[in-house]
């Protein structure tokens, strides 16, 4: 028996979940549990109560239209990854999801759960920040919307207040001609990234019109690389000099890289810069076939 003892509660409605969470301030929401249960196995987390929302029908929706993709809090990562409707308007989601854990964990883990967990090395918080996704949060004081960059406050720290849970996340569809890549340096396939990057380029023919890049696993939260984004519009190819300029910009964007047992801050800064150049170069060399 690995997790510490707790009370299990499976409410029959979202409002029932909110009530339970409000009544028990240290209760945790259980959806897929793919981060929570391992944390409880090691007793890094010892919540007195779990509120299981996985079976709430209201949270199982995936809505897709030409402007946005909305994913309910009960929807698994694998479901979104395999959805042809999602792939049509937002291939970036499947691109990011295939880096999340393994197929066996994506079968249970949820998209919104990754946001609630706010692991600095998570791909989905980075994608959410890079695309300006919005989270819908329900709590004792009603429903509110929180932009992803405000939602992710720090390592494993979100804007959720006592009694609140995420009910859905809404990703805006990127402009036509946008391609998104996720790139990572990790010790083993499927491990938490040591250094990660989400890169979205919107191109008109060969020319970059808009660039959005977000580094992750390099600081307490995913970091938008604003100077890199400023340099890329108008670019068609990266020669050696332009590559060096871009690398310097990426290194400068990462003001306060985190150092830990896996890599020093300086390593992360240099590796992120290299990853930015390598990824942008490879995207520019690739014939543009993916839309959005």
């Amino acid at each position, binding site marked *: 028996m690995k997790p*510490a003892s*707790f009370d299990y509660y499976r409410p029959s409605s979202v409002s029932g979940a909110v009530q339970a969470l409000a009544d028990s301030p240290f209760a945790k929401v259980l959806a897929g549990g793919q981060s929570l*249960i*391992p944390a409880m196995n090691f007793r890094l987390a010892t919540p007195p109560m*779990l509120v299981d929302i996985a079976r709430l029908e209201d949270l199982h929706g995936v809505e897709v239209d030409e402007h946005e993709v909305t994913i309910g809090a009960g929807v698994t990562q694998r479901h979104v990854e395999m959805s042809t409707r999602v792939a049509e308007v937002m291939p970036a989601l499947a691109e990011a999801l295939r880096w999340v854990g393994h*197929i*066996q*964990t994506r079968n249970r883990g949820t998209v919104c759960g990754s946001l609630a967990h706010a692991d600095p090395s998570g791909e989905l918080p980075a994608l959410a920040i890079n695309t300006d996704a919005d989270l819908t949060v329900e709590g004792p004081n009603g429903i509110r919307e929180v932009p992803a960059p405000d939602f992710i406050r720090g390592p494993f720290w979100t804007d959720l207040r006592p009694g609140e849970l995420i009910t859905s996340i809404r990703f805006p569809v990127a402009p036509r001609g946008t391609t998104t890549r996720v790139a990572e340096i990790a010790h083993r396939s499927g491990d938490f990234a040591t250094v990660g990057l989400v890169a979205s380029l919107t191109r008109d023919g060969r020319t970059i019109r808009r660039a959005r890049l977000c580094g992750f696993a390099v600081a307490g939260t995913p970091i938008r690389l604003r100077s890199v984004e400023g340099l890329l519009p108008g670019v068609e190819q990266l020669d050696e000099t332009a590559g060096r300029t871009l690398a310097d910009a990426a290194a400068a964007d990462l003001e306060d890289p985190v150092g830990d047992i896996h890599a020093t801050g300086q390593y992360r800064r240099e590796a992120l810069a290299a990853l930015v150049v390598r990824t942008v170069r490879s995207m520019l060399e690739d014939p543009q076939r993916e839309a959005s």
Partner: protein
Amino acid sequence: MERQDHDSPSAQVDIEVTINGERFRNRVPARLLLSDFIRDVAGLTGTHVGCEHGVCGACTVIVDGDAARSCSLLAVQVDGCTIRTVEDLATDGGLCPMQQAFHENLALQCGFCTPGFLMTLESVDPQDFADADDLFALLSGHLCRCTGYQNIIKAVASVWNEAIEPHGGRFQS
């Protein structure tokens, strides 16, 4: 004993789970992991527990058709679900084709990781996998510390190539 229907918070829960065709109805602690339910309550010790945090893949079982880590699920989360474990693969006629291929290709040494590999492979349709890289991505969710994976890939390729296209080489690395 009145059934605890999860509609009020409780540290003890009543669950009903079907494992390999056999139905189990038990009152268990809410904190009981599925892996421990399978091994200690159902008595099926073919499911192995390695890292206990979802990394190694040894404890992988099939929950309602999909591969999942039984160490990262509470038994109560699969209340009402159908579970398959490695004990469900062999029949009276002998090993299943994948087990046979593991045997013939020496795809295991200590065998600790093998049930997990087999259950992940059992859960998927080879038609959904385009090439060896796809297969690597699937198997990357399993750690094997003996065989270096080459013989495991060989075993899977032999079964999957045969299933899709006799004598084909789609999954050869």
